[in-house]
């Protein structure tokens, strides 16, 4: 007992030392003078909490870990899974009509990250190629739309396929120099690639608008009718066509629906891909490149296909991002964005699509809810990643291998 009190006391003192400069010293301004007022209350309260916690920690541990009931997800048949999928899609389609504008807006952001996460999942999760410059392809997609609008006056629906193709081409180009690289070396080269794209966007001032980027990018049209308060010369807006009055909420919901469709397509395609020969080859490449070669699989083609297809998804996401924001600038495509997308893939469980979707929701929604702690966002983010890697390195939803019933 005595030793426990001693540890608790020690922990409390340490806590006090840490708390004091953070919470314990309040800066107050009275007129011109700024003074530091120690808040002894705060410090002692914090120390007391730590002290008590350490005293009862052993009992707490017993209490928490005693019921070792293992949680197992209910096993679903194919039918059940299909029904659940449809139910989820139906909910995703209906809820925005009963929800606030900001919630729908955040959900749209989540869907963009789902797209990006699923794209990167192909490169990192399936093919095992650590790509730290994925945001580069996202930028290519976004700027493809922005530039096509700015220089050619083309709309979203023209730009969307072009953005995917452009990003795919960039993915293919990046694929070549990194064919021989693996692991750390690959990560560094891709990191550099992402930075090159960003620096190009900043420095090609005449073409891309430099650090200011390009603004005034129009939202996607509905079958050629713009969704805006006022239409440009000689065009009818969507709400005029329908005889509605203009409502900003409609635009937000429309964007959400588009994002949902794009994300579902991405999900469907990547889900199919992984069950196809090319998907199996990606996974085989991740497991053992030499064995792949010994069986006649060409690693060059397999790697390039992973890079290209992953980048294409990012390109679609980028074009949509540009349309949603209405403005693109290089600031949106920094390394931290790459890190976030990678975190989504790792947190979700490499190669697991459901996991990626969950992680995208978690990593987008939680910071929005915890707006009050905005300064601690990266701190919490880092902490969550560390804890995940310690306790659940396989991710939220580890991949389950498909089971196939063989015919006799």
């Amino acid at each position: 007992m005595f030793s426990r009190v001693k540890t608790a006391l020690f922990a409390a003192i340490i806590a006090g030392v840490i708390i004091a400069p953070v919470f314990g010293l309040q800066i107050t301004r009275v007129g011109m003078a700024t003074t530091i007022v120690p808040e002894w209350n705060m410090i002692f309260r914090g120390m007391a909490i730590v002290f008590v916690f350490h005293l009862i920690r052993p009992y707490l541990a017993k209490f928490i870990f005693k019921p070792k009931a293992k949680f197992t997800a209910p096993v679903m048949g194919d039918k059940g899974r299909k029904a659940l999928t449809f139910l989820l899609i139906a909910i995703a389609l209906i809820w925005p009509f009963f929800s606030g504008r900001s919630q729908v807006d955040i959900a749209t952001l989540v869907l963009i990250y789902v797209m990006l996460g699923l794209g990167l999942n192909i490169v990192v999760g399936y093919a095992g190629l650590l790509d730290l410059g994925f945001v580069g392809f996202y930028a290519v997609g976004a700027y493809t739309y922005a530039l096509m609008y700015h220089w050619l006056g083309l709309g979203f629906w023209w730009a969307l396929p072009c953005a995917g193709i452009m990003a795919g081409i960039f993915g293919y180009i990046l694929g070549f120099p990194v064919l021989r690289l693996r692991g750390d070396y690959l990560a560094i080269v891709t990191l550099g690639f992402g930075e090159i794209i960003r620096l190009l966007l900043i420095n090609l001032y005449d073409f891309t608008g430099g650090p200011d980027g390009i603004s005034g990018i129009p939202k996607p049209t509905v079958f050629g009718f713009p969704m805006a308060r006022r239409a440009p010369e000689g065009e009818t807006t969507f709400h005029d066509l329908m005889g509605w009055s203009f409502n900003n909420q409609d635009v937000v919901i429309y964007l959400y629906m588009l994002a949902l469709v794009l994300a579902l397509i991405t999900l469907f395609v990547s889900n199919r891909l992984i069950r196809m020969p090319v998907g199996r080859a990606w996974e085989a490449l991740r497991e053992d490149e030499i064995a792949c070669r010994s069986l006649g699989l060409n690693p060059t083609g397999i790697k390039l296909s992973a890079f290209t297809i992953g980048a294409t998804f990012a390109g679609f996401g980028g074009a949509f991002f540009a349309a949603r924001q209405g403005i693109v600038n290089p600031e949106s495509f920094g390394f931290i964005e790459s890190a976030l997308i990678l975190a989504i893939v790792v947190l979700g469980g490499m190669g697991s699509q459901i996991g990626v979707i969950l992680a995208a929701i978690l990593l987008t929604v939680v910071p929005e809810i915890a707006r009050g702690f905005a300064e601690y966002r990266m701190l919490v983010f880092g902490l969550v990643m560390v804890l995940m890697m310690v306790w659940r390195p396989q991710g939220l939803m580890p991949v389950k291998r498909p089971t196939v019933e063989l015919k006799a």
Partner: protein
Amino acid sequence: MSQSAKTLLEVSNLTMRFGGLLAVDGVSFELHDKEVFAIIGPNGAGKTTVFNCIGGFYRPTGGSIRLDGESIEGKASHVVARKGLVRTFQNVRLFKQLTVLENLLVAQHSLINTSLFSGLFKSRAYRQSEEQAQARAAHWLDLLHLREFANREAGNLAYGLQRRLEIARCMITDPRVLMLDEPAAGLNPQEKRDLQVLIDLLRRDYNVAVLLIEHDMSLVMGISDRVLVMEHGCPIVTGLPAEVQRDPRVIKAYLGEE
């Protein structure tokens, strides 16, 4: 095996040098149709290096390798594999996180319909080719008694089963030459006997010539048609198993001089 049989693989004067080290020095041999040809020798004799040269993993410094009359030395390993020359590895190299079945499906990659679009839209041709691939996999799973493990992760199989799966994965590519690098290493006596039966079956029914590196002498002497003995990268003797066993140079290489 009669000398009149067709020559499938012809290795002549193969040399491999790593900097100052001559790992393989002038190895020549011929592999005939349906033949089991063993390469033996003490550790570090250069046997696996010979395999790596033939399989395209190393570019040989000198000499020539011909498969069915076509020169293959210096070709990339996946190209060589597609020409019908596949191998297993000394330390098993399975796709560990993939299931047993997936291992066998991946191996058929170069044989099946890999078009992106037919797969995305599940075209008829795609479904047929997938079904055929699964049927082929089922055949090999049955033959090697692996069917009950079809949906297990390959890395979780017992070692003996992993070795068997590796052979199945090679055979499913319809090879002409099967190169086995110490297939009996780590197997128990029963598994070794099974392996011998299996190799016999493969060459008889599946028309494959086997190139074998092995330390287990009872296996080598039991199934090989001819044996090449290597020491320090040099070939010492090539001959029938019984001849080789009596050869004083071979005994010297293995046991040292009196």
